[in-house]
C-alpha cells in the first residue's frame, strides 16, 4: 500500500519531535509496524488543524479501514474531534474507524456533541 504523505509538526533537525522553539509538543503521525495502524502523538489544536484534516483526508482516500493508535495523543480539541466524526461518516457503513486508547476527553466530547456517531467509531481500551 502506498502510504499517505504526512507533514509533521514539532520536528527539528537536531532532536526528537518533542519540542519546537516555543516549547509546543506539536503533532506527529507515523505508521506502525503492525500495519495498517497509525500512531498519533502529541496535541491536535488549531495549530495542527490543517495537518490533521489532511491526514484524515488521506485515510478516507485509501479505501481501507482506518486504525488509529491514540495512546500518546495528549490533547484534541472539538474541531479535531468533529473532523474525526466526519471521517467516520465518510467511511460509511462498509469501512471501520478504530481508535486504540483515545484520551478520555475525546470520548467525552463524542458523547456530548455526537452521541449518534458513537456507535460508528470503534474504541479499543487495550
Amino acid at each position, binding site marked *: 500500500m502506498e502510504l499517505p504523505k504526512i507533514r509533521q509538526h514539532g520536528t527539528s533537525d537536531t532532536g526528537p519531535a518533542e519540542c519546537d522553539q*516555543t*516549547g*509546543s509538543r506539536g503533532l506527529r503521525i507515523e505508521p506502525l509496524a503492525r500495519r495498517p495502524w497509525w500512531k498519533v502523538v502529541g*496535541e491536535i489544536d*488549531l*495549530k495542527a488543524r490543517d495537518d490533521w484534516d489532511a491526514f484524515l483526508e488521506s485515510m478516507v482516500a485509501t479505501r481501507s479501514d482506518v486504525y488509529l493508535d491514540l495512546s500518546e495523543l495528549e490533547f484534541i*480539541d472539538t*474541531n479535531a474531534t468533529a473532523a474525526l466524526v466526519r471521517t467516520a461518516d465518510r467511511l460509511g457503513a462498509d469501512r471501520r474507524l478504530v481508535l486504540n486508547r483515545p484520551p478520555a476527553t475525546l470520548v467525552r466530547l463524542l458523547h*456530548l*456533541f455526537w452521541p449518534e456517531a458513537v456507535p460508528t467509531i470503534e474504541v479499543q481500551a487495550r
Partner: protein
Amino acid sequence: MTTTPLSSADPFVHPALFYRDDAEYLAGTVPFITDGLHTGEPVAVSVPGAKLDLLRAALGELGERVRFLDMTVVGRNPGRIIPGVLRAFADLHPSRRVRIIGEPIWPGRSDAEYPACVQHEALINHAFTGRMVSILCPYDTTGLSTQVLDDAVATHPVLIDADGQRDSGRYAPDRIVDAYNRPLLPPPPAAVVIPVHLGRMSDARRLTAEHARGLGLTEERVDDVLLSITELATNSIVHGGGAGTVHLWAENEHLVVQVSDSGHITDPLAGRIPAATAQTGGRGLLLVNHLADLVRVHSTRQGTTIQARFRRS
C-alpha cells in the same frame, strides 16, 4: 392555561410565574404540568431541589411521566441552560409541543451569577422563536429583590400571579441583554498572565494545568479547564484579532479562567445553541458553557472578555 400564545403568531410561550409561597407555587405549576400530560405533551421540570421535592410530592404517580432535573446542578451555569436543558429536551420532541418549567433564578444566586441568569432569561425568547414550546419560569417574590422581579417583567412577554395572567407591558429582552453586558471585575494583581497566539497554545495548556493542579482540581476537572482555555484561545486567534490574553486566579472556591481579545461577539446566542451534527466549527463557547460552573461574557466593539469559573472541589 398558557397552552396557546396570547397575542401573536409565535407558538413559543414564555410566562413568568410570580409566587409568594409553596401554595401559590403549586397552584401555578401543577396545572401547567397536568394539562400538558393530559394532552400528551412531554413535560420537563428543572427547578431547585427543594421545589423538585415539593412538585414530586404534589404530583404523586403523575410525576413518573415528568422529567425532573435539579436546576442548581444542570443550570448552575446559566449559559448551559438553553443548550443543555431546554433545547436538549425540546429537540427530543421536534414535532410536538413540549412544556418545561425552568427556574434559573433563586434567592441563593450570587452577584457574579445574576447577570448571566437574567441574560439567559432574555435570550430564551430568541432561542425559541417559532418553536412549539412552553416554558414557565417561577419567581420567588418573597426571596428575590425588587430589581430581579422588575427584570423578569422585561424578560417575559406574559406574567402570571395569584390574580391571573396578563401581558407584561414592559417586555424588552434586548434591553436586558445589553444592560447586563457589563465590564467584568479585573483580575487580581496576583493573577497568572499568559499571552496566547497560535504558537503558544500548548504552553498555555501546560501552565494552566500546573496552576489548576496546584489549586486542587481533579484530573478530570483539569481536562475541562484545558479544553475550555483551548476553545477560548482558539476563538481569540480566529475571531479576536489573532491573539488573546489569558488570566488565571483563584477566587474563593473557584479557579477563574479569563480570556480577553480584540474581537466583538455580535450574536448574543453564541455558545447557547446546540450545533448541528455536520457542523465542524462553532462549538467552542458552547463547550465552555457545558463544562464551566459559571461563564460571564463582556463584549463590545473594543473587545471581548470571557470569564469561566471552575469549582475546585
